[in-house]
């Protein structure tokens, strides 16, 4: 494995009696797309929040570019970005205004060429003058992704970026992400409930259940170990059984 860009060691987050992330350790090499998967409440979003320093860990450590996220948070944030289907941009600003503001926040000196190039890449160049609140969810997702690429991030954290998108637009988004990864070697940590999408996009997957790692490897490896035809079947098994192999098989 190449030098990891992300290293997670014994990461644990407890909220009172609930353990959201339980002694999680993994590493992500440069240029990999890692699918962080699992049923609702598995700890995916909390893990992303820990990696972004939005939440402080109870124990363990998350390092990005070799820097402790808690201690060197702003140095890390300068080089990463985040997008989620569940957050938005100020609705009463136009697309251009929103991207211009965030370009400044990420320290871009001449934002216009970068904003226009990204808008072209994500197919929203003709929407930049439109107020963000008037955009469809697909257009808004692409605007959010433009925001996420503004600082030319080396690591991108994406929380269900294609949720609520129609299949056509979701496909465009996936292709764009793949292209960015190929061209620029961006490392992407990706959560999704769409297992077909994960199979097509992710180099490696990491399944969580109740905050713990249940399985990791390439999608094909994981399917073979679980003796399942699709990643969706693996997901269902983990969601129901909390483990990769069927409990009856294990007993047998």
């Amino acid at each position, binding site marked *: 494995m190449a030098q990891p860009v992300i290293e997670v060691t014994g990461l644990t987050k407890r909220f009172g009696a609930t353990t959201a992330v339980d002694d999680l350790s993994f590493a992500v090499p440069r240029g990999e797309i890692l699918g962080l998967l699992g049923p609702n409440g598995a700890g995916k979003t*909390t893990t992303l*929040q820990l990696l972004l320093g939005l*939440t402080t860990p109870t124990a363990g450590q998350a390092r990005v570019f070799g820097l402790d996220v808690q201690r060197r948070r702003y140095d890390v*944030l300068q080089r990463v970005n*985040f997008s989620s289907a*569940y957050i938005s*941009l*100020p609705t009463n600003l136009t697309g251009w205004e929103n991207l211009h503001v*965030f370009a400044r926040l990420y320290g871009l000196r001449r934002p216009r060429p970068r904003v226009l190039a990204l808008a072209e890449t994500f197919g929203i160049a003709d929407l930049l003058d439109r107020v963000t609140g008037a955009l469809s969810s697909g257009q808004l997702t692409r605007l959010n992704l433009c925001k996420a690429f503004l600082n030319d991030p080396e690591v991108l954290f994406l929380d269900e970026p294609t949720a609520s998108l129609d299949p056509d637009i979701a496909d465009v988004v996936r292709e764009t992400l793949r292209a960015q990864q190929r061209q620029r070697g961006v490392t992407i940590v990706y959560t999704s409930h769409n297992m077909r999408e994960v199979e097509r996009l992710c180099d490696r997957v990491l399944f969580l259940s109740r905050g713990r790692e249940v399985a990791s490897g390439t999608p094909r490896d994981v399917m073979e170990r679980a003796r399942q035809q699709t990643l969706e079947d693996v997901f269902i098994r983990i969601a129901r059984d909390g483990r990769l192999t069927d409990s009856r098989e294990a007993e047998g």
Partner: protein
Amino acid sequence: MASRVLGLLLRYAYLYRRSLARSMELFFWPVMDLLVWGFLSVYLERVAAPRAVSYLVGALILWDVLYRCQQAITLAVTEDIWVKNIINLFVAPVRPAELMVATSIVGVFKAAIPGVLLTVLALVLYDYHLLALGGALAPFLASLLLFGWAVGIFTAGLILRFGQSAEALVWGIPFVLQPFSAVFYPVAVLPGWARTVALVLPSTHVFEGMRAVVAGEGLRGATLIAAFGLNAFYLLAGSLFFAWMLRRVREKGYLGKLGME
């Protein structure tokens, strides 16, 4: 740092340019207040109370400075929660201090723009000259600005911790302070326990000082020292409180949920 503060200022400039309602709000309520209080003062002056216009209209214009500064900071955080943009800000390399500096600068503009309008209107409608406060005006304004920032930073910390459920605090906290600040009456009319509260607020010293200047007693140095000393304390306390709240929400995992409520 300058680039990020400018970026945040750009965001608020776009916001006000785009929203007619928001721009109108800057002027509408202060002007309505000025009309009601101004005409009441004119009436009071005619029946019994000399200098009522100077006391009440002057106090109203100065109070608006504190209120606008507090609102600018707290509303900035609240609005980013409303539009689910708060996470975007916290995953950008924007330091909390930069956010506070930018919103404090917005507060200066939010206070200055209606302040100038109210001063002109007061002159036209009631023949009241705010500038007649002379050399005392600048330290009074500065003191109210500082206290507005301190209260705004404190309230923003509460909003960060309790989210939209604490929204009422955005509007309510200045009005909790108002009766104790002796804005429209001397501190002497307050009962003993309330007077104790009043004297630990910098705003009380400003309004007491203003009345002294209007009464021809001149600017008291002790008043300014008390006001600025208390402001320094509240700014420090407000900033520490905000930092503590930010640490708590990161520990509790609330920050991640704030924008997704």
